[in-house]
C-alpha cells in the first residue's frame, strides 16, 4: 500500500518529469537559500549595486541558552479555589504575570501554564535576553494577591489550655517589659537594651531606630511621642497591637505646614501683572497688615491679594513641605506659630502676609518591643475567615479617592460584571457582619456590611498615606493575582556563556558535517557526491523552516539538527547499498536505481517512524531543553526523507544510463557478467 502510494508520488514516468522535478528542487533550494541567508544576499546586492529585489530578512529565534536569559517556574496554589474554576484562575494569574513582564520590554516573553502529572498547576516564564533578572523576579512576585473573605461560621476557638498558655506568655512578656523599663530608668543605654531585648527583628540591630515617623504615617505613635517629649523615653511599657512597647523620642521637626497668604506684587516682580510701584505696594501691604485678623484674613485675601486665583482660594496654599516655597517665605512660615499672622515678608513675587493654619510634625523614634500572643496568632490570621468566590481576578479598576469628611485617601475598587454579582451576593449574606479584604495574605480592611451593595464598587480604607494609596492602586491595576504563586524553579544563563557554547557547537557541527561529506564521497564516489548535494539542499531547507515556522533554537535543538543530518545520510546509505546489491545481481542500471529506491523504502519508513514516535514522547516531556531537541529532530527526519529520496533520485535520473556505463568507476562497481 505504502509502496504503491510512494511510487505514484515519487516515481513519475518519463524524462520530462525528471527535469520538472529538478527544476522544482532548484527553485526550492534557491528559495530556502534566500530565507536562510537573506541578510547576506541583501548585503551583496548593496555592495555590488545589483538591481534585484531584496528579500525580507527573517532572524532565527534563539532560545534562552543561546541568547542568555531566565526561565522561571512558578507553582500556582489552587487549594482555595473550587475545582471547576482552577484552570481559569491559573489562566488569570498567567495573564497578570504576562502584563507585569511586558513592563520589562523583554522580546517575546513566554508565559505558559503547564499541568504536572499529579494535577498541580505550573506557570512557566521564559525571559530571553533580560538584564536584571532579580528585578524581574521581584516584580512578578510583588504582584498583589487580593482576596475577599467572609466570616467562618465554624470559626475555631481557643481551647482552655491555649487560653492559659496565652495568658502565661503575656504575663511573662509584661515582666520582661518591666525589667527592661527598670534597666532604662536606672540609666541603661536604650540602643544597647534594644539590641538585647527587642523582639522587633527589623529594628533590633539598629538600636530600635524607627527613623522619622510623621503624624500621617502613624498617628497613634506620634501622639505618644508628643506626650513623651523630645529626649525622653516612656516611663512605663505601653500597650501596642503586637505587644509591649517602650518608646524613646530623639527629635521632633516640622514636616509640613498649612498656610494661606495675601500677596501684593509690584511692577517688575516675578509673574506680576499689576502696575503698582514698589513703594506703593509696600504702603498697600502695610495698610492690609493693620486691618488683618485671623477672622477676616480669607476675605481680605479674596479682595486684595494680587495672586492669580486668590478670589476663589482665599490665598489657601494647603499643606506643603520644606523646599517648595520661596526661601524667605519658608523661613517665615516654618518659624511662626499655628494661628498667627506673620509680619511682612518680601520675596521675588512681592510682599506677603502669611497666616499659618496648621502644622504636621515628624518624630525621630526608637522602640523596644516585647511581643505578646493573641488568639489570632494561635489560630492563624485567617482562621476566622473563609474565601469567597470574589478575588483579584474580578477587579476591573482600582483608583485613589478621598474621604469627603476628613480628606483621608482610600482605594476604590471597581469590579467586572461577574465580580459585581459576587460582591452583591457576599454583602447580601453578610449584612451586619464584617467582610475582610486581604492583600498578600493580610487583612488590610475589615469593613462591616451595613446593607447589600449593588453596582460592583468597594472601598479599601486603611491608614494610607497618599503615596501608599497610589502605589496600592497602581499595583492592583497592574494586576491582582487570583491565586498565590511561588517560585519553584529558576534557570539563568549569562549571555556570554551562551555565546561561547553556540560558537563551539556550531564549529563542531561544521567539522562533523565535513567529515560525513568526505566519508560519503570517498566511499560512494559519485553517488556520495549526489547525496552530499542532497544534504546541502536538506540543510538549507531545514534552516529556512526553522526561521519561518519559527522553531526556537536551543543548544539541544542544534544537536537535534546535527543528529538529523546523520539520519538523512542513513537513508542514502540504505538506498546506495541496495542499488549496488541490485547491480551485483546483474540488473541493468535503471532497474537497479528503481529497485534500490523502492526496496529501501520500507526500512527507511519503519526506522524513521520509530524516531518520530520517540520524538513525540519527548515533546510531551515538555522540558524546554528536551523539547527543542525533539522538535528539530522530528522536522529533520521528515525533511530528510524528502531530501534523501526525492532530491537524490532526481539528481541521479538526470544522468543517462549510457553516461554511467562509460564512467562505471564513479559508482564503484565492475560489471560482472
Amino acid at each position, binding site marked *: 500500500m505504502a509502496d504503491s502510494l510512494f511510487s505514484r508520488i515519487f516515481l513519475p514516468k518519463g524524462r520530462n518529469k525528471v527535469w520538472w522535478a529538478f527544476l522544482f528542487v532548484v527553485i526550492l533550494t534557491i528559495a530556502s537559500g534566500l530565507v536562510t541567508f537573506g541578510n547576506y544576499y541583501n548585503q551583496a546586492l548593496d555592495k555590488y549595486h545589483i538591481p534585484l529585489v531584496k528579500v525580507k530578512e527573517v532572524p532565527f529565534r534563539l532560545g534562552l541558552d543561546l541568547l542568555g536569559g531566565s526561565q522561571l517556574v512558578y507553582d500556582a496554589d489552587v487549594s482555595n479555589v473550587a475545582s471547576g474554576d482552577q484552570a481559569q484562575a491559573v489562566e488569570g494569574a498567567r495573564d497578570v504575570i504576562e502584563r507585569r513582564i511586558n513592563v520589562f520590554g523583554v522580546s517575546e516573553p513566554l508565559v505558559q501554564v503547564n499541568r504536572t502529572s499529579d494535577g498541580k498547576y505550573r506557570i512557566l516564564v521564559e525571559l530571553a535576553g533580560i538584564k536584571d533578572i532579580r528585578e524581574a523576579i521581584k516584580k512578578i512576585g510583588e504582584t498583589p494577591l487580593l482576596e475577599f473573605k467572609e466570616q467562618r461560621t465554624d470559626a475555631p476557638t481557643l481551647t482552655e489550655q491555649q487560653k492559659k498558655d496565652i495568658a502565661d506568655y503575656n504575663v511573662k512578656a509584661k515582666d520582661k517589659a518591666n525589667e527592661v523599663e527598670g534597666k532604662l530608668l536606672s540609666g541603661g543605654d536604650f540602643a544597647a537594651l534594644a539590641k538585647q531585648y527587642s523582639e522587633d527583628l527589623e529594628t533590633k540591630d539598629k538600636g530600635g531606630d524607627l527613623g522619622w515617623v510623621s503624624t500621617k504615617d502613624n498617628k497613634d505613635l506620634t501622639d505618644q511621642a508628643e506626650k513623651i517629649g523630645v529626649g525622653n523615653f516612656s516611663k512605663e511599657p505601653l500597650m501596642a497591637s503586637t505587644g509591649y512597647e517602650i518608646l524613646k523620642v530623639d527629635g521632633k521637626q516640622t514636616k509640613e505646614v498649612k498656610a494661606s497668604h495675601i500677596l501684593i506684587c509690584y511692577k517688575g516682580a516675578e509673574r506680576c501683572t499689576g502696575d503698582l510701584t514698589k513703594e506703593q505696594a509696600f504702603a498697600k501691604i502695610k495698610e492690609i497688615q493693620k486691618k488683618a485678623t485671623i477672622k477676616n484674613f480669607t476675605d481680605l485675601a479674596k479682595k486684595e491679594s494680587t495672586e492669580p486665583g486668590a478670589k476663589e482660594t482665599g490665598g489657601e496654599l494647603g499643606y506643603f513641605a520644606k523646599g517648595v516655597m520661596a526661601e524667605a517665605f519658608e523661613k517665615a512660615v516654618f518659624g511662626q506659630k499655628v494661628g498667627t499672622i506673620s509680619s511682612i515678608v518680601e520675596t521675588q513675587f512681592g510682599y506677603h502676609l502669611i497666616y499659618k493654619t496648621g502644622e504636621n510634625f515628624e518624630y525621630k523614634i526608637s522602640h523596644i518591643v516585647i511581643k505578646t500572643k493573641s488568639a489570632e496568632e494561635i489560630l492563624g490570621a485567617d482562621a476566622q475567615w473563609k474565601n469567597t468566590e470574589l478575588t483579584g481576578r474580578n477587579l476591573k479598576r482600582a483608583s485613589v479617592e478621598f474621604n469627603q469628611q476628613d480628606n483621608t485617601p482610600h482605594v476604590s475598587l471597581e469590579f467586572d460584571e461577574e465580580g459585581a454579582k459576587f460582591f452583591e451576593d457576599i454583602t447580601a449574606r453578610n449584612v451586619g457582619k464584617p467582610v475582610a479584604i486581604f492583600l498578600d495574605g493580610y487583612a488590610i480592611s475589615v469593613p462591616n456590611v451595613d446593607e447589600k451593595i449593588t453596582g460592583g464598587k468597594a472601598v479599601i480604607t486603611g491608614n494610607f498615606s497618599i503615596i501608599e494609596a497610589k502605589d496600592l492602586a497602581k499595583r492592583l491595576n497592574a494586576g491582582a493575582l487570583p491565586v498565590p504563586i511561588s517560585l519553584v524553579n529558576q534557570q539563568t544563563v549569562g549571555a556570554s556563556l551562551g555565546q561561547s557554547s553556540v560558537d563551539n557547537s556550531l564549529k563542531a557541527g561544521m567539522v562533523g558535517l565535513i567529515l560525513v561529506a568526505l566519508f560519503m564521497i570517498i566511499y560512494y564516489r559519485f553517488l556520495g557526491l549526489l547525496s552530499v548535494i542532497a544534504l546541502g539542499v536538506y540543510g538549507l531547507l531545514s534552516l529556512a523552516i526553522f526561521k519561518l515556522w519559527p522553531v526556537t533554537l536551543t*543548544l539541544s535543538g542544534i544537536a537535534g539538527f546535527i543528529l538529523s543530518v546523520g539520519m538523512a545520510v542513513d537513508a542514502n546509505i540504505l538506498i546506495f547499498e541496495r542499488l549496488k546489491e541490485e547491480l551485483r545481481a546483474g540488473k541493468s542500471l535503471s532497474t537497479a536505481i528503481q529497485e534500490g529506491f523502492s526496496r529501501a523504502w520500507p526500512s527507511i519508513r519503519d526506522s524513521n517512524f520509530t524516531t518520530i514516535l520517540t520524538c513525540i514522547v519527548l515533546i510531551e516531556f515538555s522540558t524546554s531543553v*528536551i523539547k527543542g531537541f525533539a522538535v528539530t529532530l522530528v522536522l529533520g527526519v521528515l525533511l530528510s526523507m524528502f531530501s534523501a529520496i526525492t532530491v537524490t533520485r532526481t539528481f541521479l535520473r538526470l544522468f543517462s544510463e549510457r553516461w554511467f556505463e562509460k564512467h562505471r568507476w564513479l559508482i564503484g562497481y565492475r560489471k560482472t557478467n
Partner: protein
Amino acid sequence: MVNLISKRKIWLSLSTIFVAVSLYALFAWGLKLGIDFTGGSLLEVTMNGQQPSISEVEDSLASENLHSLTIQPSESNGLILRFQETSEDVHQAVLSKLTSLAKKKGATDPALEEQRFEAVGPSAGTELQKKAIYSVILVLLTISLYIAWAFRKVSRPVASWKYGVATLVALFHDVVIVLGFFAFLGHFFGIEVNTSFVAAALTVLGFSVHDTIVVFDRIRENLPRSNQDFAGTVNMSLNQTLVRSINTSVTVILVLAAIVFLGGISIKYFALALLVGIFFGTYSSIFLASPILVVWDNISRRAR
C-alpha cells in the same frame, strides 16, 4: 559471506558481560543525579580578578549555612557552586557575599559575573524523575507495539511478537550500558546526569530500534524466497545489511565525536551519551537482536 550467526555464543556472552558490568556499576555506585532530579541550586560565576581559593569561598559563605555546599572550579576559569537551598533570597545573599569576596581580592567592577544559575525546587525534582521514567516506559511501549504491528505478517517460523521482544532486549542492553557508563563517569569524574541525559537515552532507544528494524526488515524480505534454514536466512540478511549498519553508525559517530571533542560544554555529555548509546545500539542490532531470534527459534524447535 561472514558467518556471524554461528559465532552467536561469543556475541551473546560479550553482551552479557557488558550488561553485567554495567549493572554492577549502576548498583554499586548509582548515577550521580544532577539538581534537575534532586532539587537544589547550581551557580556558576566568574570573578574579575584574582581567583579566590575554594576554602576562602567556603569561609565567606559560612554564615549562610548552606546545606551540602560543594564548590569546584569551572572550565571557563570561574566557580561552580552547588547547594540545597533554592530560594531567591539565598541566591541573592550568596551573590552579594561572593561579590564582596571578589572585591576583597581586588577585582574591578563588575567584580562578579553570574554566568548561570539554576534552582530546582525539591518537588519539581521528584516530578521530573517520575516524568523521565514514564517517558522511557512510554517510548519502549510504543516502539515494541509498532514493531509487533510492522511485522504482523511475518509469523513463520518465528512469531512477530518475538521480533518485538528481541528488539526490547536489544534496547534494554543499550540503555543499561549507557546508564552503567554514566554511573562510572559519575563515580570517577563527578559527571552528573540531568534532563538532557534522559533525552539522550530516549534518542538511543530510537536509534537502536532504527538499526534493528533495518536488519529485521531484511529478514522479513528474505524469508519467503530463501532456500536456507532460519539461521542461514538471518545470517544472509545480516551480511546484506552489515555495510549499511556500519556506514550509518560511522557517519553519526563522526558527527557526535566532533561535538564531544569540539562542542560547547553544555552539550558535550549529551553527545557523549549518544555516542556510547549509538555505538552499542549498532552492536546490538547486529550481534544481539538477530542471534536472539535464532536462539529462540532453536529452543522452540527442540521443545516441539
